[in-house]
């Protein structure tokens, strides 16, 4: 049987192979073929600093999401070493309870290259799982940096996970993660400092500019003990209902499509820029001049951009 047919029937090896093809960019037509089958899954992002317990939380919450015969796809992202290009993907270690469940599919992903690589491929792979018929798609992010915000752009519900060791609320406000949170979880809630952090976060949220009607819930969990998980699952479902009832889901998803298009435009321009448009020899000459302080980097940039827009093909 054709790969695509097997894929649409939910055949796991076929799903795995489609993901590989999309990830490696070996079959550009494939995404077009599966795209009409997307739009049915609900995307949940789990993000937070390394060691916060994101994988353990996924392991704990998935059984709740599986209730009523639902299917859950999981993408677990870990970083690629910028030095070797290799990656150690260890999120499965903490998801053992799910490994053999018929209705669960887990895929580990390395961040790979830099030029928008991670975020972009992760979003496409989320679409693959959507098309494959999963009701929920969970994306667990690396836990560092800008990428988190990026992932939040595809998720309907973004859960930000903190631990008492994450530091005080000011740290969290600096990191910019509050802006993306729909639900905030303080995991390892049995450790000292958990209640203090929750209180601080409540104050921090009060300072937020309230433009939406959704009050961000702050929940306490102990993922490995399964504490607070029921509440977290019901809060996720409640957020889903809220978005659907208020009609926000449509607005949000359209916004996300706009962001996605913008992002793809940027990516494409970047690739072209690096591959074709910049004349490396000329650039080197200009860099030499800039090194001698004869011209500024800004001047070089203007020259390149001017040339870029005179080019017919982009």
């Amino acid at each position, binding site marked *: 049987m054709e790969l695509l047919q097997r894929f649409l029937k939910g055949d*796991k*090896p076929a*799903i*795995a*192979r489609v*993901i*590989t093809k999309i*990830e*490696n*960019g*070996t079959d550009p037509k494939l995404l077009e073929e599966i795209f009409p089958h997307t739009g049915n899954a609900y995307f949940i992002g789990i993000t937070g600093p390394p060691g916060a317990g994101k994988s353990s939380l996924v392991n704990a919450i998935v059984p709740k999401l599986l209730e009523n015969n639902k299917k859950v796809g999981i993408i677990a992202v870990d970083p*690629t*070493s910028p030095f*070797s*290009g*290799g*990656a*150690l*993907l*260890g999120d*499965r*270690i903490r998801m*053992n309870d799910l*490994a*053999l469940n018929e209705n669960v*599919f*887990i*895929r*580990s992903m*390395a961040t*790979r*290259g830099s030029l928008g690589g991670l975020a972009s491929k992760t979003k496409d792979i989320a679409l693959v799982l959507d098309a494959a018929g999963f009701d929920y798609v969970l994306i667990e992010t690396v836990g560092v940096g800008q990428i988190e915000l990026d992932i939040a752009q595809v998720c309907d519900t973004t859960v930000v996970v903190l631990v008492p060791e994450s530091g005080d609320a000011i740290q969290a406000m600096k990191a910019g993660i509050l802006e993306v949170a729909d639900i905030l979880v303080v995991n390892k809630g049995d450790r000292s400092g958990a209640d203090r952090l929750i209180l601080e976060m409540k104050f921090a949220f009060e300072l937020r500019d309230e433009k939406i009607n959704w009050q961000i819930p702050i929940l306490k969990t102990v993922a490995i003990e399964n504490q607070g998980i029921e509440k977290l699952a019901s809060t996720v479902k409640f957020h889903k209902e809220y978005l659907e009832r208020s009609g926000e889901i449509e607005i949000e998803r359209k916004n996300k499509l706009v962001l996605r298009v913008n992002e793809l435009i940027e990516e494409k321009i970047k690739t072209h820029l690096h591959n074709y448009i910049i004349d490396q020899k000329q650039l080197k000459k200009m860099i030499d001049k800039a090194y001698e302080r004869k011209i500024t980097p800004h001047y070089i940039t203007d020259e390149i951009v001017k040339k870029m827009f005179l080019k017919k093909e982009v």
Partner: protein
Amino acid sequence: MNKKIRILIGKPGLDGHDRGAKVIAAALRDAGFEVIYTGLHQLSESIVEAAIQEDVDIIGLSILSGAHMTIFPKILELLKQKNAEHIIVIGGGIIPEEDIKKLLKMGVKRIFTPGAPTNDIVDYIKSIIR
């Protein structure tokens, strides 16, 4: 193109000695592979299912418990049942010479024994995947 070698390193069965598996996993990562490490005490079924979902090129099993003559054939059999025979199986551990011969005959591609330099393992994997 971004084709990367993907390998699953598994510790099947009850043996709790994962130092070797971790050393190998780190060495393969440093060689530029994407290494999926599944942790200790894995069922053969979980390893095969993970290998399929992760679409790995190769499974590397670390077995120091003496159960190699049970576990390797089981993994090979499960791969066959699941139509995933394209996934290459290699292994490492304390495995006697005469057993190695039998395992290779069954379809295990290569067994590395203690003292094998990590470079050799990396080079071997590159040579069979490329």
